[in-house]
């Protein structure tokens, strides 16, 4: 079938096929919905980042002088809730996953395009509820909504915040459901499970967690709301209810949720590392199984968040041991990325810089996770900045790095334009330096005993120097995050038109035009090759412009 051409002579793409607000708000095209999500999560990323910046500014001096104590509680609560539920969890799946999964498996769309649009609307409704919560005075439960603090004592907007997260959860569930069905039922002829790109495997594992974990969070938050509004007493200690039960239910989701955040990032890094090393991934099956392994074991470790909360010693021992098991598949991934690069023909384009950053920072985040999994050390560093540094190494150093790497890698496909490579590299460098300067001092602070969630540390002024370093790093990080947004927007108009395959990369998404047409493929593709068949691709990555 001939390529459709517009009256202007341009090739018809998903971007120029229709114009107008309605063609976006009522679209069922997975690529357009991905862009709708991109706008939503970018907005919330900068809101959450703004709160983080205020936190860092407050901690610049030991005295609590910039904001009041109550305001500070609200700042870290809303920073956490927005970043976790409105940025990290939807970020890669809803934007890059949405855009790429159907294309990577050779399908015209996700299995349920209208449910996909519904997911976005749910996300936006949840976002509006969260904004209402913020503007109405905020919420200060901590992102964890711990009872009975959240149910009995606080006077802030707990109910609207909990319901916002509840609705966002359903958006996440529907996305996961859509992906599972799509990957099962919509693969092109010849696209067997063992030929799937690891990006798709990663989203499959992620979706399993979303589908199995999120409903438990949903019911926990409903019960919190019911306790506040109707005075039910399921978690109320005054009635003999158990606050620990809430923590169990909460972490049953929220620990696996960490893997919702990191697994898609691992998928991205696998794609990037192979492309810029010009090699097939080392240990394809082990890599795919490691993704599933992390998802499964990740469901069995939640109580390591509760070692000092009063669970029994035997439970703690078992959860400690199980937590160590997560390190096995994680290490397989790190070693295999390294082995993939070994003797590869490596080039240092922006996506690869982010992938390097991811592997290193994820390793540091993972190894400090082992400190926290061991009972003795955990008692010492619980609720200190050591924990903060640890999970920011995973979520920001890992996930956000991977997300930015993926955005650069596929931006030519998404927008049909090249981003400016030199600026890209500069931003990647700034993000890496800024990130480490922000969070490495926090490991030290935590080990020295600085507790998290304190707004005033005037009794320990020796902590100030490390806090100043951290705040300085956060400033650099902020510049590193703003830069890509500026030059991505710039490139949409002024960037060089992207070729169909700017990196000479393997994968179905690089065999169709940039940007793709609405139905992705002119003809049903038939797959007869393994994923990452870089031994069959003779061209190198073109030299950067």
């Amino acid at each position, binding site marked *: 079938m001939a390529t459709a051409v517009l009256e202007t002579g341009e090739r018809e793409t998903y971007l120029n096929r229709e114009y107008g607000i309605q063609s976006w708000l009522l679209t069922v095209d997975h690529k357009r919905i991905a862009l709708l999500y991109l706008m939503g999560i970018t907005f919330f990323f900068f809101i959450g980042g703004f709160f983080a910046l205020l936190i860092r500014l407050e901690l610049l001096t030991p005295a609590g002088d910039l904001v009041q104590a109550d305001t500070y509680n609200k700042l870290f609560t809303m920073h956490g809730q927005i970043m976790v539920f409105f940025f990290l969890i939807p970020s890669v799946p809803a934007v890059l996953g949405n855009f790429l999964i159907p294309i990577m498996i050779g399908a015209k769309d996700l299995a349920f395009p209208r449910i996909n649009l519904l997911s976005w609307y749910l996300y936006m409704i949840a976002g509006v509820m969260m904004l209402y919560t913020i503007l109405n005075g905020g919420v200060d439960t901590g992102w964890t909504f711990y009872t009975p603090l959240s149910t009995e004592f606080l006077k802030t907007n707990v109910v609207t915040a909990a319901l916002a997260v509840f609705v966002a959860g359903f958006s996440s569930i529907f996305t996961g*459901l859509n992906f599972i069905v799509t990957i099962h039922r919509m693969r092109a002829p010849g696209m067997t499970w063992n030929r799937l790109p690891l990006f798709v495997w990663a989203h499959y594992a992620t979706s399993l967690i979303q589908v199995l974990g999120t409903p438990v969070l949903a*019911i926990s938050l409903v*019960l919190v709301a*019911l306790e506040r509004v109707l005075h039910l007493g399921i978690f109320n200690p005054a009635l003999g209810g158990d606050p620990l039960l809430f923590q169990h239910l909460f972490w049953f989701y929220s620990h696996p949720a960490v893997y919702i955040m990191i697994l898609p990032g691992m998928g991205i890094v696998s794609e990037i590392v192979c492309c810029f090393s010009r090699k097939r991934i080392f240990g394809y099956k082990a890599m795919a199984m490691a993704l599933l392994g992390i998802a499964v074991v990740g469901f069995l470790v939640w109580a390591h968040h509760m070692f000092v909360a009063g669970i029994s010693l035997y439970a703690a021992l078992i959860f400690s041991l199980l937590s160590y098991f997560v390190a096995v598949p994680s290490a397989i991934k790190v070693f295999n990325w390294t082995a993939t690069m070994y003797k590869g023909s490596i080039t240092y384009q922006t996506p690869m810089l982010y992938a390097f950053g991811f592997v290193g920072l994820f390793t540091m985040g993972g190894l400090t996770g082992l400190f926290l999994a061991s009972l003795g050390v955990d008692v010492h560093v619980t609720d200190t900045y050591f924990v903060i540094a640890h999970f920011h190494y995973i979520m920001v150093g890992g996930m956000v790095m991977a997300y930015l790497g993926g955005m650069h890698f596929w931006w030519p496909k998404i927008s049909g334009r090249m981003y400016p490579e030199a600026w890209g590299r500069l931003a990647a460098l700034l993000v890496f330096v800024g990130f480490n300067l922000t969070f490495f001092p926090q490991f030290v602070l935590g080990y020295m005993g600085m507790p998290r969630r304190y707004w005033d540390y005037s009794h320990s002024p020796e902590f100030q120097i490390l806090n100043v370093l951290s705040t300085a790093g956060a400033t650099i990080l902020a510049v590193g995050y703003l830069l890509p947004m500026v030059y991505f927007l710039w490139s949409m108009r002024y960037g060089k038109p992207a070729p169909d395959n700017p990196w000479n990369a393997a994968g179905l998404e690089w065999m169709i035009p940039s940007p793709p047409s609405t139905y992705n493929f002119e003809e*049903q593709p038939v797959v007869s090759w393994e994923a990452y068949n870089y031994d069959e691709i003779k061209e190198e990555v073109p030299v950067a412009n």
Partner: protein
Amino acid sequence: MQTSPAATVPGEAHENLALLHHFATPEQQKDAASLGMWIFLVTEVMFFGGMFCAYLIYRYWYFGDFAAASSSIDLTLGTINTAVLICSSLTVAMAVRCAQVGKQKSIVVYLILTIILGVAFLGIKGLEYKQKFDENHVPGQASFHLAGHVPRHPDLPVNQQHAQIYFSLYFAMTGMHALHMIIGVGLFSYLAYKAWKGLYGPGYYTPLENGGLYWHFVDIVWIYLFPLLYLIDRHP
């Protein structure tokens, strides 16, 4: 919406009005819808699972008080409701069967019967709630009081706090179940309208089948709720 050439299968085009553009065959579309529905039901199991988990723990801790509180609930109404719900599952199954064999009028009749049974269930449930309000068995109210003693322990009065936990779970679990029933009634009203328009027949009845799956799931939840909430340590 423009359909692409791959979307039509030769010879079946006239039957495939409902085939969406991105599926190659009706079988693929039906498979996808069924798998999607089953996964959704898995999420529902996890959703209710959180409450069942809480129930399990508190019932183990506070068994005597749970038994006493459970005995205060109207067993007759609960039993009638169980029967009503099982009948409604039968009518749903009949509606799907009628679609498979092409009895289009009977589909509508069975769906309306299902809706009537569903509304009857909700009505009876409302009566039970009213009783609980009249008897001051609503948790969180200052007036809460459950008279009596732990079954077979005349010297052991009911712990009012623990009884409130029972009723918290009772209202949360049956309330969440009733909410699913209301959604189900709405869903079947829509399906009945579409069936009345003649949309479903032997060639296409996926929405009906998936709606039925949902309804059966909600029934099964009740099949667990009934003994767990109504039949704790009851003796004639």
